[in-house]
């Protein structure tokens, strides 16, 4: 039988994280690349996006915002970011040294983030954090990689836990009214789903409460037995896939999914330090 602690040792966990993060980067960048809104004069065009930097405290950023980045440069950045993501996933798959592909991916990921600052969501932010942490982790061999994975796992735990705790303050998550309302919007819902929720409003109650409980208890993922952690993360992955299908949050699947190998690595590491607990 394969030992899960070996499957999620530092090298493997680092490789899996890199692979999934590469796919996430490729999808996020390719979506921007193919978005009609990226063209000049459109919603995501540079002439509108650069207004975000008008009051930047960094003089070089303000200076850069005055430059004209034409359509060609914008599409080139998105294209290179897509390619670098694909290359990162391939290099990880082939176990080729990660430093250079990671550095290139981080560069184009950051450039794309700078080019399109508006409309970022948690998936975009978590992905860039993950990529930079992975790059930093390559500076000091296995110890650096372990630190990077621990940091990524900690960010993931912080993200879910903060979201859960913040939801606790509002009754609408317990009584299902927030879930019902959310699923009846065009932005995050679908006609079929909203019809079901309208006909059986009571199903929104366990959905809202279960989400809240799962997020608040998420930090336990690093303390439970690794088999249980694996099952829980599979359930979270299904949860993200469901949200992707219903709400269109497809990038969350990969951006948060990239942190799961790091979480399993953290789980295995903690268990090895505290063998008497379990």
């Amino acid at each position, binding site marked *: 039988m394969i030992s899960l602690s070996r499957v999620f040792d530092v090298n493997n966990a680092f490789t899996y994280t890199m692979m999934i993060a590469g796919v996430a980067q490729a999808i996020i960048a390719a979506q921007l690349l193919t978005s009609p809104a990226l063209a000049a004069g459109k919603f995501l065009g540079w002439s509108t996006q650069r207004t975000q930097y008008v009051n930047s405290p960094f003089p070089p950023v303000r200076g850069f915002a005055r430059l004209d980045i034409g359509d060609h440069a914008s599409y080139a950045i998105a294209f290179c970011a897509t390619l670098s993501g694909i290359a990162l996933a391939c290099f990880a798959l082939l176990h080729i040294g990660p430093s250079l592909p990671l550095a290139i991916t981080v560069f184009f990921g950051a450039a794309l983030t700078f080019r399109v600052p*508006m409309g970022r*969501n948690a998936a975009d932010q978590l992905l860039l954090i993950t990529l930079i942490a992975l790059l930093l982790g390559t500076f000091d061999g296995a110890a*650096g990689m372990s*630190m990077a994975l621990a940091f990524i796992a900690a960010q993931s735990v912080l993200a879910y836990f903060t*979201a859960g705790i913040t939801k606790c*303050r509002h009754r609408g998550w317990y009584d299902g009214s927030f879930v019902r309302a959310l699923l009846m919007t065009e932005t995050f*819902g679908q006609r079929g789903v909203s019809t079901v929720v309208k006909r059986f409003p009571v199903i929104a109650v366990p959905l809202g409460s279960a989400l809240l409980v799962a997020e608040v208890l998420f930090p336990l993922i690093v303390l439970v037995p690794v088999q249980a952690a694996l099952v829980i993360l599979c359930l979270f992955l299904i949860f993200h896939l469901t949200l992707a299908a219903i709400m269109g949050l497809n990038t969350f699947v990969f951006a948060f999914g990239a942190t799961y190998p790091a979480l399993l690595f953290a789980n295995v590491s903690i268990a090895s330090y505290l063998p008497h607990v379990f």
Partner: protein
Amino acid sequence: MFIALSFVFGLWFALSVIRQFRLPIMDWITRYDILGLVPSWRLFAPRPMRVDYKVMRRFSTDAGPRTKWHDPVIDPHTNRWRIIWNPHRRGRKITGELGKLMGTAAFADWPVSMRLQHGLYVALLSRVSADAPREANAVQFGIIVHRKFDPEYPSYPLFVSPFHDLA
């Protein structure tokens, strides 16, 4: 190198934890954090977006009459493949953020010159100005709040801009 990395990751995570609280120092950090590396992890909390924001626009023309209000179709929603492919999500997110901004009491009191310095406002103005008919000389836009799949939810106008000259 080990100590340097420990310091970097330790400081980064400490800032991330502090960022989750509404402290005055966070405004300062957010201002400098142009890449969003110290995010506020809310994920639909505390209250999710429970309405849709529909953008409408109309033009005034050289000939005099104004065009009818119409939907410029900023972000098509129907995409059955959005589980894996969703290129319109950024536009939708911006529309949502703009709706939230315009729903605040403070925004209503902003003079036009101040609104024109806000990135989201400029983004929307730029978008509704695109594809303007040749005879148009100014554009006006409005945001309507509604809940698409809930006919019982009353829709209402949230914001109507003045006419902005087209360049």
